[in-house]
Structures are given as structure tokens and as C-alpha cells.
């Protein structure tokens, strides 16, 4: 909503208040002023000129040499506009003038002819092209005949004005009208407002003699008022009217259309003007459209209607899409003599639906959608009739043609001052509350210590007690509310164990050198199931904005890989990222997808980079595995974790494993398949993903201290030669099984293949630690346990002991 302060001052006294101050006060009271637009934009030296003479430039076809009376002198100005002509009153920027955009006007010679200034278009004065009346859109603007040469043109054009741009919240549709704004500003300034004085002469002929009205769709159109004005002369509107409309962001057309738009802006009540003769039938019927019925709207677009769209018809065919846009067939035009003014209440939901369906949002539909004031429907029609009589010379026929089943009773709200104060935490007196409500012109009675309020229908947002609390609070000032803290039954607060552990996961991974990434949940359908830990239906958007963001992800890995590629492409060769976030799997019974929190890691490039000491190591499987093991240890799963070689699409078949917790698969880890790396422009890359929710919810043993060893442990090393296929995991398992309860720790410390080891075999060495918490072990006991281990390795893994 654009609010011209010049226009506003017709209704409320804002003299002496700087626009910036006014804007600030309006903002603090609840309507945010987005910007303050100074329409003069610092222009000076722009005056009215009278074109005394206008001849073609001898040297240039498109230029005219004009002798222009600018008050103090008659001076020569060269003008290139196609519509300049002798006798016109025009806008002249004199030498020294500065126009919007910093254009400086100087004396100049154009093709040998002197030019002392410029004859201006409205665009050159900073008015948007789409607001300039069509007749002047391609040339200079022509002022009314009575403009005086030399007179300052800015006030004449209403450019000595400041416009406040409101950013209205949906509840404050009352401020979609100048009168609504006047009520608000009046309340803020503790002033009354001046409503338009409506009176005009009526013709003896009655409107209902000319026009019949039938409303069939009474639910969607509970009130319809039509007035008929005869003998109108369609012409350009007076300058003041055009100025107001342009200030409000509306393009002037002709007097009748401009008047309907003026009243729309003034009252917030959309009006429509029909050419009575073009209606042909002398009848208006409001009904729902036939399915597939067509109408050509004012913007010359043909629209196909559905049976719930409300239309105004002439009894035969639609002449307007109710509340949204008029039809081309009944439009007021230059030859129109009899006008039908429509003022109606169309149900918000109906207008909203129709406007959405046909993709048309107009000033009218925006107001109907939010509900116009039922008590202004008639008044707005009267106001338009008055102005048409004044400005288009029409004779207003007596009375109106009316259908009215609209409820107009104000909402009654009864509320006690105590209630208000207890909700606000304040002590505002009842008198002051009454004063505030009076300033807002909300009729209020004090009855038995209660406020009995009849909320005016212009304020559609006042329905319940809390709405009144807000009115009191915002007018009293939020700065006055004290600062207290809530007193509630004390709950302990804090993180749940799950949330606390999630933080531990983050801290651990970051301590290990990984950076936290946050990627998008929406991905392409094609990529959505890649690397998923389980197979499930995808969750797709009904109307995606792009193919790339059309489906919810089932794995975090694809987007982490995209982040890797992004970094690598910018020469950040070593990247290690992790992310925690939801994946979306299939559909649960309640219709929502199964949402599971996952953790994923992706890393590439160097892991250790300490080049000057000759240390450098690329990321490999075991770097990532070490991180996973470390994390799981931190979470208390040290001996419950296993890794099993696995084949997973997109992963290196020899370097990928399932991660198992207590034997159940909770994740995957491994190297990205070379073809996948190539596709993504990545070098050797490792990824892992686990079902974090499962892991964080798994029960862990209580943390109970074990006594610090008082007796020494004994260590024995074994070096074995085994078949290449025998896994370290299997050997360790055999050792642990055979070692009995004295064996406390097994550590792999050497692995070798090649020279001196038989083809197809490998040499592998473990260090075993034996320990008894109760006493010092004897050599014999250790030898006995160790022999069992050696025997088991020989028999179960076909291992040869190395010397």
C-alpha cells in the first residue's frame, strides 16, 4: 500500500509532522513503513510552459523548434516528442534544473538551433512508465489549459509529496484504504478524522427503472449495490485525481474508471463500472459460471471458467469475473453515456480461489480476499456517484438497485481491565483503556467494570479479547511493558541423552579433523536412493521447482560428494566433511515418511600433511575406519562393532564394508567406486554413513570403574604365516577365543607380504597381553595359555609360526 501524505492530509491533520517521524510512529504502532518515497526527488526549476509556436526543425525530421512562454520570458526549446504542438501547456525543465537520476539541464544547441531547457515527459520526472496515462506514454505530458506559464510544475503534478510504502500484515486489511490509514494515524496522533462529505443531486428517474438485479449465488455474493448514472462524458480526469492515483501506484485511464479506482483506494471497497448500453439487457444476474464457460477479461485474455467461479452476467453471458476483473464486452469506453456502478461484497474464499485459479491478483481481489467492510459497500457506491456527477457531468438516478443479505452487526467483545492487565503484566487504568479505544474510534461502554466493545466492521481483525489486548498494548506502547521472567512449575530442562550424544558425535568428529557440512534435503529423483542403507519408496514433491530438488534424500552421501567436488574444483584438494541429518524412507501408516537421522562422512586428499618433515599420507580406508572405531568407542560400543566386507553399488568392491553393531547392520564404509569418482571429478575418496538414530538409541553398559592394575601384565608376541585370504579379524577372533580369561589384549603390529614370504601367503604379527587383576602371573600359567593360542591358530587357521 502506497500512502500519499498529501492525500492523507485530506482526512487527518498531519501538518508539521515530518514524514520520517510519521513513518516511525506508524511503524511503532504496528504497521511497518517499508520506505519513505520523496516524489520530488530533489527536482528544481521545473515550471509550466505555454507552447506559443511549434515548427519543424529544418535540419532534423524528428525535432521541433518551440517558442515557449515560461512566465518571465518566452524562450526557444527544441523538443523531440511526437506529440508536442502549439497551444499546449507543458512541463519545462529550465537550464539549471536537476531531474531524477541526476540529469542536469543546460542550454544547448541541437543541429544548430539553440535550446533553453527541455519539455518533459512524466517519466523524465521520475514517474514509472507503467503509471503514465496511455495517451502520454510515448511523449511529453500535456497539462490542463488553465495552468499558468512560469508556475512551479511540481505542486501542480502532486510531486511535492512524500509517499509512505506500507508493508501490511494480512490482518490489517483495514489499512488497504486511505480512510483506514486515516483512522490509524488519527489514533496515533490522538486526532479525529474528516470523512468525505457525500451529497449530490439525484435525478427523478429511478435506478431500478433502468436496471434489474438478480443474485443467484447469495452465499458468495451476499450484498450487491448498483447505481446508474446517465449522460456522463468520458474524458480525462482532473489533474488532482490523476496525481493521487499515480501516487498510489494506479495508472489513470478516464474519469469514470479513475473514480472507481479512487474510491477503491479511499474506502478499500472495490468498484466496477459497466457501460449500461453494452450490457444490452438492462439486467444484472450474479451466478456461478457454467463449467467451461468463457469470458474475455479487461486485459484481453480469454479465460475458461469452472462452476465454482462467481460471475456477473447480463442474464445471458458473463460480463465480469466477480471481484477479480471486469469483462472486455461491457467496459466503459470513450463513447459511454450511461454507467452502472457496482459495489458488492464478494465472499473472501470465493474471490481468493478464483483469483488463484485464473492467476489474476488485482487491487480489487486483494481487498475482497481479506473481507471488505460490510458497512461501506453502499457508502462507497454513493461516493462514486457523487464524484461522477461532479467530474463527468452525469445525472445520478435516484436510489440504488440492491440485493442485501449481508450481516453488518459489529462483533461484541466484553473484557475486563484486569484480564487485559493480567495478560500483559501491566497496570493500565480502565480510564486509559477507554481513552485508547476512543482514539481508535472503537465504540466502547464501561458496564460494571467491564469494557463492552462493539468492534467496528472496518476492523475485520478485531474478533476476540486478545485482539483488544493488542489494541490497548500497541497504543499504550510496548516500551511500557515491564520485563519479567515466567514463573512456571520448574522442569529440569536440558538436553535429552540422545541430543547430548549427538553433540558428542559432532565434537568427536571435529576433534578428528572433520568439518561439519549442511546440505539440502531435496535432491533429484535419480540420485535420491543412491547409497541408501535400506530400500524404500521415495518421497516426491507434488510440484517441484526443479528436477534437481524434487525428491527427499535417502542418503547424505550424494550431497556430501557434491560438496567435495565443489571444493576440489576450487583447488581445495584435501576435504573431510561430515553431516548429521534426516533421510526419508518410504511411508509410515500415518502418511508421513519414516524420517531417520543419519551420520555420513566423506573425505578425499591428504590426511596427514607435514611435508617439511617428510610426512604425508593420503586418506585411506583405515583412516576412516579408525574414525568410526574411535567414535564408537566414545559412545561405549568398543567391542560390539564389526566390519564385514560388502558389495554396495557405487562403492569399490574390494574396499567396502558393512558396519555392524551387535551383528546388526547400521552402516557402510568404503572407497568410492573409481567410475563414481571419475563421474564426480574426484580422486580417491572414502565415505561412510550410519543410522545415527539406531546407534544413539542403542543401550550401553553403565560406566563403572575397574580397579587400576596392581600386578604386572606379561606380553608375548607371535609372528605367523597364513594364507593371504585369512583375515586379520578371523585371526584375532581365534586368538581371543583360545586365550581364555587371562588374555586381556591383542594388538596387530606387523603385516608383510612379498620377499621371503611364500607366494599366496602373508606374514602377520600380534602382540598378546596376559594379565590377572588378582595376582602376578607365573611363567607357567602364561605359557599354558599362550600354547593354547598357538595350537588354535595352527589348527583353525593353518598358521605357521615364524622363528
Amino acid at each position: 500500500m502506497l500512502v500519499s501524505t498529501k492525500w492523507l492530509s485530506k482526512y487527518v491533520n498531519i501538518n508539521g509532522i515530518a514524514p520520517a517521524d510519521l513513518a516511525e510512529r506508524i511503524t511503532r504502532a504496528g504497521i511497518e513503513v517499508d520506505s519513505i518515497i520523496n516524489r520530488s526527488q530533489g527536482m528544481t526549476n521545473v515550471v509550466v510552459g505555454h507552447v506559443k509556436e511549434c515548427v519543424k526543425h529544418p535540419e532534423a525530421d524528428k525535432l521541433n523548434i518551440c517558442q515557449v512562454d515560461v512566465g518571465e520570458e518566452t524562450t526557444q526549446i527544441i523538443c523531440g516528442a511526437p506529440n508536442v504542438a502549439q497551444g499546449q501547456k507543458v512541463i519545462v525543465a529550465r537550464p539549471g534544473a536537476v531531474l531524477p537520476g541526476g540529469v542536469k539541464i543546460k542550454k544547448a544547441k541541437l543541429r544548430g538551433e539553440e535550446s533553453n531547457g527541455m519539455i518533459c515527459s512524466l517519466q523524465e520526472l521520475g514517474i514509472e512508465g507503467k503509471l503514465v496515462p496511455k495517451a502520454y506514454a510515448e511523449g511529453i505530458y500535456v497539462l490542463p489549459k488553465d495552468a499558468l506559464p512560469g508556475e512551479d510544475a511540481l505542486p501542480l503534478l502532486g510531486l511535492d509529496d512524500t509517499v509512505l510504502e506500507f508493508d501490511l500484515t494480512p490482518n490489517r486489511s483495514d489499512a488497504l484504504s486511505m480512510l483506514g490509514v486515516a483512522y490509524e494515524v488519527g489514533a496515533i496522533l490522538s486526532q479525529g478524522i474528516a470523512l468525505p462529505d457525500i451529497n449530490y443531486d439525484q435525478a427523478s428517474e429511478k435506478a431500478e427503472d433502468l436496471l434489474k438485479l438478480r443474485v443467484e449465488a447469495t452465499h458468495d455474493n451476499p450484498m450487491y449495490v448498483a447505481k446508474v448514472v446517465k449522460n456522463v462524458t468520458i474524458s480525462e480526469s482532473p489533474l488532482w485525481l490523476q496525481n493521487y492515483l499515480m501516487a498510489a501506484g494506479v495508472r489513470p485511464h478516464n474519469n469514470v474508471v479513475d473514480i472507481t479506482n479512487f474510491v477503491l483506494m479511499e474506502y478499500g471497497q472495490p468498484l466496477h463500472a459497466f457501460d449500461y448500453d453494452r450490457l444490452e439487457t438492462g439486467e444484472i444476474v450474479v451466478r456461478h459460471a457454467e463449467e467451461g464457460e468463457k469470458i474475455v477479461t479487461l486485459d484481453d485474455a480469454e479465460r475458461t471458467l469452472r462452476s465454482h467461479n462467481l460471475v456477473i452476467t447480463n442474464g445471458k453471458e458473463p460480463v465480469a469475473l466477480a471481484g477479480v476483473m471486469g469483462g472486455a464486452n461491457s467496459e466503459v469506453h470513450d463513447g459511454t453515456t450511461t454507467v452502472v456502478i457496482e459495489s458488492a461484497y464478494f465472499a473472501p474464499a470465493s474471490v481468493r480461489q478464483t483469483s488463484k485459479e485464473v492467476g489474476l491478483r488485482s487491487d480489487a481481489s486483494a481487498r475482497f480476499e481479506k473481507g471488505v467492510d460490510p458497512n461501506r459497500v453502499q457508502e462507497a457506491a454513493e461516493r462514486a456517484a457523487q464524484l461522477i456527477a461532479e467530474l463527468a457531468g452525469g445525472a445520478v438516478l435516484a436510489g440504488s438497485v440492491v440485493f442485501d443479505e449481508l450481516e453488518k452487526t459489529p462483533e461484541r467483545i466484553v473484557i475486563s481491565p484486569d484480564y487485559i492487565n493480567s495478560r500483559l503484566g501491566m497496570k493500565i487504568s480502565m480510564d486509559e483503556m477507554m481513552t485508547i479505544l476512543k482514539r481508535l474510534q472503537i465504540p466502547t461502554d464501561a458496564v460494571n467494570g467491564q469494557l463492552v466493545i462493539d468492534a467496528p466492521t472496518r476492523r475485520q481483525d478485531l474478533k476476540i479479547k486478545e485482539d483488544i489486548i493488542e489494541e490497548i498494548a500497541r497504543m499504550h506502547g510496548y516500551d511500557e511493558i515491564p520485563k519479567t521472567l515466567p514463573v512456571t512449575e520448574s522442569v529440569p530442562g536440558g538436553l535429552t541423552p540422545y541430543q547430548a550424544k549427538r553433540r558428542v558425535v559432532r565434537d568427536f568428529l571435529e576433534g578428528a579433523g572433520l568439518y561439519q557440512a549442511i546440505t539440502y534435503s531435496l535432491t533429484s529423483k535419480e540420485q535420491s536412493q543412491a547409497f541408501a542403507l535400506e530400500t524404500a519408496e521415495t518421497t516426491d514433491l507434488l510440484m517441484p521447482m526443479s528436477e534437481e530438488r524434487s525428491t527427499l534424500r535417502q542418503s547424505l552421501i550424494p550431497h556430501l560428494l557434491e560438496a567435495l567436488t565443489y571444493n576440489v574444483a576450487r583447488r581445495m584438494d584435501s576435504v573431510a566433511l561430515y553431516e548429521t541429518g534426516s533421510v526419508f524412507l518410504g511411508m509410515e501408516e500415518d502418511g508421513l515418511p519414516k524420517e531417520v537421522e543419519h551420520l555420513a562422512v566423506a573425505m578425499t586428499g591428504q590426511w596427514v600433511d607435514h611435508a617439511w618433515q617428510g610426512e604425508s599420507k593420503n586418506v585411506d580406508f583405515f583412516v576412516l575406519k579408525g574414525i568410526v572405531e574411535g567414535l564408537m568407542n566414545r559412545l561405549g560400543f568398543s567391542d560390539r562393532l564389526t566390519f564385514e566386507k560388502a558389495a554396495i553399488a557405487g562403492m569399490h568392491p574390494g574396499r567396502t564394508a558393512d558396519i555392524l553393531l551387535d551383528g546388526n547392520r547400521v552402516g557402510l564404509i568404503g572407497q568410492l567406486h573409481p567410475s563414481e569418482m571419475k563421474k564426480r571429478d574426484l580422486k580417491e575418496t572414502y565415505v561412510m554413513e550410519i543410522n545415527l538414530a539406531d546407534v544413539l538409541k542403542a543401550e550401553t553398559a553403565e560406566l563403572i570403574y575397574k580397579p587400576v592394575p596392581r600386578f604386572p601384565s606379561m606380553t608375548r608376541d607371535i609372528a605367523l604365516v597364513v594364507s593371504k585370504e585369512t583375515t586379520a579379524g578371523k585371526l584375532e577372533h581365534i586368538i581371543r577365543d583360545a586365550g581364555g580369561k587371562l588374555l586381556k589384549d591383542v594388538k596387530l603390529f606387523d603385516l608383510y607380504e612379498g620377499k621371503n614370504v611364500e607366494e599366496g601367503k602373508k606374514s602377520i604379527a600380534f602382540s598378546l597381553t596376559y594379565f590377572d587383576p588378582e595376582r602376578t602371573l607365573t611363567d607357567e600359567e602364561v605359557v599354558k595359555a599362550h600354547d593354547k593360542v598357538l595350537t588354535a591358530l595352527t589348527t583353525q587357521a593353518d598358521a605357521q609360526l615364524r622363528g
Partner: protein
Amino acid sequence: MEQQLQQLKEEALKKIQDASDVKELNDVRVAYLGKKGPITDLLKGMGKLPAEERPKMGALVNVVRETVTEALESRMTLLEEAAIQAQLENESIDVTLPGRPAPAGNHHPLTRVVEEIEDFFISMGYEIAEGPEVEKDYYNFEALNLPKGHPARDMQDSFYISEDILLRTHTSPVQARTMEAKKGEAIKIICPGKVYRRDNDDATHSHQFTQIEGLVVGENIRMSDLKGTLDLFAKKMFGADREIRLRPSFFPFTEPSVEMDISCFKCGGAGCNVCKKTGWIEILGAGMVHPNVLKMAGYDPSVVTGFAFGMGPERIAMLKYGVEDIRHFYTNDIRFISQFNRTEA
């Protein structure tokens, strides 16, 4: 013999003096004081002396031995010190060479902001509530006083999965779910999470972003409680000398509704680019829980009241750290994320 002894002493002392390292000195020790050395020989030869001379000679030999031993020890100390000195010089390093980097990842800046907010409210006795990112229309809109066809739904253009399921447009459905689950009990929660809106990604819009909301419900919760809570929050988050101001606003799920500005933390209110010369920065939206919302969740609004507030960690991070483009948060450029690895003042 006495003369012989004297000569021996002189000789030994010279050799001790001449020894240039520990090993040489040890050789001298062995040569003179060892079992096969001349002094031992002399002692062994004592038996041949007349008995009356023995004590005198014995004392003399001992004096010589002690003198030599003392000289040896002091020379030894000296040489050892020199050896250590030499070793230290040899071991000297260039301390300006770079150290071995310790592994150091860090939080994403949004997590950093979210955790800071969470921790403040946890200290005030709040719990953290979480909920699904794919929501029912009911929890996302209807239970929040936004029935189908409500004009305010236009404020939040949504991604629908089906007619009744959508990606949540705010974290408020978590509030609705929590109220429903608490069945009339008092509530103090913070709800952080990802939300989604139909926006084209540009410098100030992102189809996915983060929200963090708070909700307090109980008997006699007043608007002054909201103001006091937000004031403490602003001071904790943006500096002890921050002032707040509330401006009336509109949200369908609160009434009255307000927006909260804080005095600009860059210029202190004088006016600068961060606050667009106004001295104030808009930080969050808040209000008293709308009675319809309470009613729908099974609370009696005549007895129980509440307040709610919500803010965008992206906006807060952008303001705090001067980030100019919201897309930085989702590009995961390591050169961006790694800047948030240090503590603040």
C-alpha cells in the same frame, strides 16, 4: 720413593689437565688409579719398607691419591658440562618452522548459532523439542490457527508431498505436537530445525533454511514474561548493553504478535550499514499464544496462557559474522566453514 711419588702426581695432574674429553679422562683414571696403576703398585710395594716408615709413606700415598682423584673429578665435571653444552648446541632447532597441525574440524556456523541459542535457553530451564521435517498440514497450519484457505498461508509458500503432507514451513508444528503430547502440563521448550519454503535460491532466500522457536505455556504467563525473556536473550547473544524494542506485528498463531528489534551491535544505535541507519536490527517474531492454538491442543485458554517466539539462525549468523549471501551456508566451501573455528570475545 717420596720423590717418585711427587713425580707421579705431577705427571697425573698434567695428564688430567690435558684430557680433552670424558673418554680420555677415564683412560687417565684407569692409568693412574686403576688396579694395575702405579699408585696401586706403590701401595703394594709398601710391604718392603721398614715398618716405621710405612705410616708416613702410607699417608703420603693417600694424599697423592686424593689429590689426583679430586683433580680427576673436577676435570670430569667440567668435561661433562662441556659435552652437554656441545650436545645442546648440536640439537638446536629452528623454532620458527611450522608445527605439526593438530586435527581441527569445526561446527558449521549455523550449528554454532543454534547451539549458542539452545545453551542459553537450557540454562533458563528449557528443553529441546524436535519433530519431523515432513509434516501433516494439520500440525503445520491448522493447529496453528491457519485453516485451509486462510490468507496468511500465502506468507509461506510450501512444498507439498500430497494434499495433506508437506515439508514443514516453520518449526511451529513441533510446538503444536508438544502441546498435544503434554496434555495440559506446563511447557518450556526450544525447537530448532530445518524448514522449507518455495523460494528461488538467491542471496537472501533459500528453499531450505533453519529456524529456532521457543514456547512457554503455563498458568499466568504474561507478555511481560516474554519481554523479560527476550531481553535476557538479546543481552546474552548480542552483548550486555543491547536494548530491545517490541513492535506490533501479525502471526496467525499469536495474539498479540510482535517483532523484536535489538539496538544495533555494530554502531550501538548511532546508525550504520548493518542497521540501515535506523539504529535497530530486526531479530525475531514473537507473541502470546493464540487462544485457538491453545484450545486445539487441549488447553483451556481462560486458565493457561503462553508465549512463543521464533528466529532464523541464518539471519543471526549473517548479522553477527557479516555474511552477505545466504547460499554460503549450503555450499559447504571449506574456506567458509573453517573460518568459524575460533572462539569469540
